[in-house]
Every structure is written in structure tokens, then in C-alpha cells.
């Protein structure tokens, strides 16, 4: 590696070290200041963000996996000696990057409300029942092709106080690490044709229609397990390589 490698001109690589660079999403993530979602009001930074180049700390990340996860963590329908109530479903898909490459061996964490729309949490006190056999937490590590699969029950919708008669569409929370600090993502998966989308400021905070639809899982009849569970498929796309960075590469690209 030479110091005049074109990568040095990019705003990321450490000196003498060629580092992967990640794309910087524009118009995909919701603006932190989204007035329709009231809680953003006092919680969004008002000062401009400072550009952070993708240096060593940003292109690395924790290697998390098997130590945190047991086989049972993929099945949310059995808890405390019994079976959860509700529509049993399989939720499955792939974790990819935006270059289309699988992200293997990465931790996927989920949590959700029960079939009645109630979370097992001290601060969720709306009058829907808790399910003694549902705690709403799951974990898996993606396989070598980036695939993940959970068995769970379909979460219910629930009310909240953001605006008059506000209801959250049914959703499952997802947390992903990818392979680098830069790829860290926390999001929510929704279900097709939810009649509550129109009034949900969290779903609608995503400005781009396509990106919004990217959070909606697809009913997957092929993956349905006969006489056992319905199935929904949802692929998750983390940041891939920074296209701009690679466009600047020329004859020295072979150095990599």
C-alpha cells in the first residue's frame, strides 16, 4: 500500500491502511426532528451533525454471536412452561448489505408485544392482558447465507398517547449489528395492509415511499408450515460499500 493510493484522498481511510468504506444513506432514515412524532421534540439534536470519516473504530465492530444465543431463543412461542396465545407465525429472511452480499454470523435481536398488543414491561399498563407464556424476546445469529428465522406469534396493535386515538400498527422491533459500527441498525418490521399505517407518525417518518415499504414484511405462503404456522418474509439491508469512494479508484485499485 502506498501513501499516494487514491483511497488516501477519500475522507475515510487511515493513513497507509486501506479500509472498507460504507455508503452514507441519504433520504432513507427518518429525520430526527419529526414533529408528528411528539417525543422527537426535545430529543433531536439541533446543532449540525459533524461528518465522521469511516476510520478504524467505525469500520470494525463487536463480534457477537453464539455466546449470547441459545437454540431456544429463536422460538418465542414457548415460555415459562406453556404455549403463547395468538396466531403462530414464522418470520424469516436474509440480512444483506446494499451490495447484495449476505451478512453472515451476525446477531439479530427482536422484541414485541403479545397477541393482545401488550408488552411485558412495567411501563406498559394499558388494559390488555399479559400472556403468562409470552415474554416477547428473541435472538438468533444469521447463518452463512445471512438467513435468520424466528417462530413467534403475530403481535397485536396497541394504543399510545402521541395524538388523539393513536394506535401503533402491529410491529416487531429488530436490532442488528452487521460487521461494523457503521452498520448498526435498530428498526421495526410491519405487516402488509395494516389499516393503521395512515395515522402512524413513526412509520410515516420515513420520507421515501419505497424505503417505508421496505419495512413491511410479505406474507409468504411458500414458507408457511402446514398445520402449524403462517409465515412472513422480510429481508434487511445494511449499508454496503460507499459507491462514491469506489468511483474515485482507478489504476491503483489492484492494490486491494
Amino acid at each position, binding site marked *: 500500500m502506498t501513501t499516494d493510493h487514491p483511497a488516501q484522498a477519500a475522507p*475515510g481511510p487511515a493513513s497507509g491502511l486501506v479500509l472498507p468504506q460504507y455508503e452514507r444513506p441519504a433520504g432513507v432514515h427518518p429525520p430526527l426532528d419529526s414533529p408528528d412524532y411528539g417525543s422527537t421534540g426535545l430529543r433531536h439534536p439541533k446543532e449540525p451533525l459533524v461528518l465522521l470519516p469511516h476510520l478504524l473504530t467505525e469500520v470494525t465492530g463487536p463480534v457477537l454471536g453464539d455466546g449470547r444465543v441459545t437454540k431456544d431463543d429463536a422460538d418465542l412461542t414457548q415460555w415459562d412452561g406453556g404455549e403463547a396465545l395468538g396466531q403462530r407465525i414464522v418470520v424469516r429472511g436474509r440480512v444483506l448489505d446494499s451490495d447484495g452480499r449476505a451478512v453472515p454470523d451476525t446477531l439479530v435481536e427482536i422484541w414485541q408485544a403479545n397477541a393482545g398488543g401488550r408488552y411485558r414491561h412495567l411501563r406498559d399498563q394499558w388494559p390488555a392482558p399479559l400472556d403468562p407464556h409470552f415474554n416477547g424476546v428473541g435472538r438468533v445469529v444469521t447463518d452463512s447465507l445471512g438467513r435468520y428465522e424466528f417462530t413467534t406469534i403475530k403481535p397485536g396493535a396497541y394504543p399510545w398517547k402521541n395524538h388523539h386515538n393513536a394506535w401503533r400498527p402491529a410491529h416487531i422491533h429488530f436490532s442488528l449489528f452487521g460487521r461494523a459500527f457503521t452498520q448498526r441498525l435498530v428498526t421495526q418490521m410491519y405487516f402488509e395492509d395494516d389499516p393503521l399505517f395512515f395515522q402512524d407518525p413513526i412509520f410515516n417518518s420515513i420520507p421515501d415511499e419505497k424505503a417505508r415499504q421496505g419495512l413491511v414484511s410479505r406474507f409468504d405462503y411458500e414458507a408457511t408450515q402446514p398445520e402449524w404456522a403462517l409465515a412472513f418474509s422480510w429481508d434487511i439491508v445494511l449499508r*454496503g460499500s460507499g459507491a462514491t469512494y469506489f468511483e474515485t479508484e482507478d489504476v491503483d485499485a489492484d492494490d486491494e
Partner: protein
Amino acid sequence: MPTTSDGRPGLTASQTVGPYLAIGLTWEHGEEAVDPGTPGAVTVSGTLYDGEGVPIPDGMVEIWQAHPDGRFHHPDDPRGVAEAPPGFRGFARAQTVDGGRWSVLTLVPGAVPGPDGTTQAPHLDVSVFARGLLDRVVTRVYFPEHAGVAGPGGHAEDRVLAAVPEHRRHTLVAQQVDGGYRFDIRLQGENETVFFDI
């Protein structure tokens, strides 16, 4: 899965972690980037505040950092995958509790190579999640003992710090306290913490 105009898979958008993150993101000993009792272990703790200075009791802070020698246990470090010191993971997550307090246990990282032959001062990369944050916000913790160091490893040579307006840099430097460091995070308002576009 939507695709972009050039046929690439479209990125999955972020959503808030919501108020019930404790259900899914609680790990036993999750706040320990290093095992308790490890020589050199320090606490980095602080309070997460909103724009009115009210503590946020339902957020989460995650840290990621280099080993004390500035290396990483990671295949994308071109210097090679470095074995971590015993009991050290480099990653921790801590939920904020009543009073907005969070706390992690770790080792002070080493300096890390930066752009153009410079060296980055020792730092933690930090993600903050909370209800009301539709995407994580990212900041860095620097350490006060490196502020006055001239040359490699000092704050003056750090290009990331240099890109921050001078009057705001202090928000990225922890304060020394008994047993470690204090690093308060202000999402908005007076002395708003510097957050990065990553």
C-alpha cells in the same frame, strides 16, 4: 425488498427503539466491556438529558472501542486481527435508568491510526438510542488525560476532534471522577453534545 434506481438493494430504514427496549436488549453483564476486577478497569458513566435538561430514563448507550494497545479483534483492521486482552470485549451496552444514569465498565483504549499519517487520540465510539430518537445518534468519548499530549495520541493531532467547532469540543471529553470518568450526553439545548454524521 425495494431496490434503488441502480438496482442495488434499498437500505432498510431506521425506526425508534421505543420505550420497551429493555425487553429485547437486556444482556446479563451487558454493561461490562471488560470483566470486573481486570487491572485498569474504569467506569465510564453519565446522564442522558433531553432538551429541557430532563434526564431520559428509557434510553440506551452502547460503546465500541479499540484495545488498550489501539488494535481491534476484527478482520477489517488491515493491521491484522488482534487477540483481545483477557476478559475484554470492547463493546458494552447500558440502559439508562431512573435519573437518566448509564454506566459501563471498560479499559481506556489506545491511540488509533488516523488519516494522512496522523494518530487519533484514544476514544470510544458511542451510539445513543431512545424513544423519540428515530435513528441512533453517534458521538465519541475522549479522555481528559490526553488533552495536553503533544503529537500522536493527543487531542491536538486528532482529525475528528479538529473537525468539531472548537467551542463544542469540550462536550466530547469525559471528566475524571473517582473510579473512572463522567460523560453526560445532552441530546439538545445548552452544551448539546456533538453528534456525528456517520
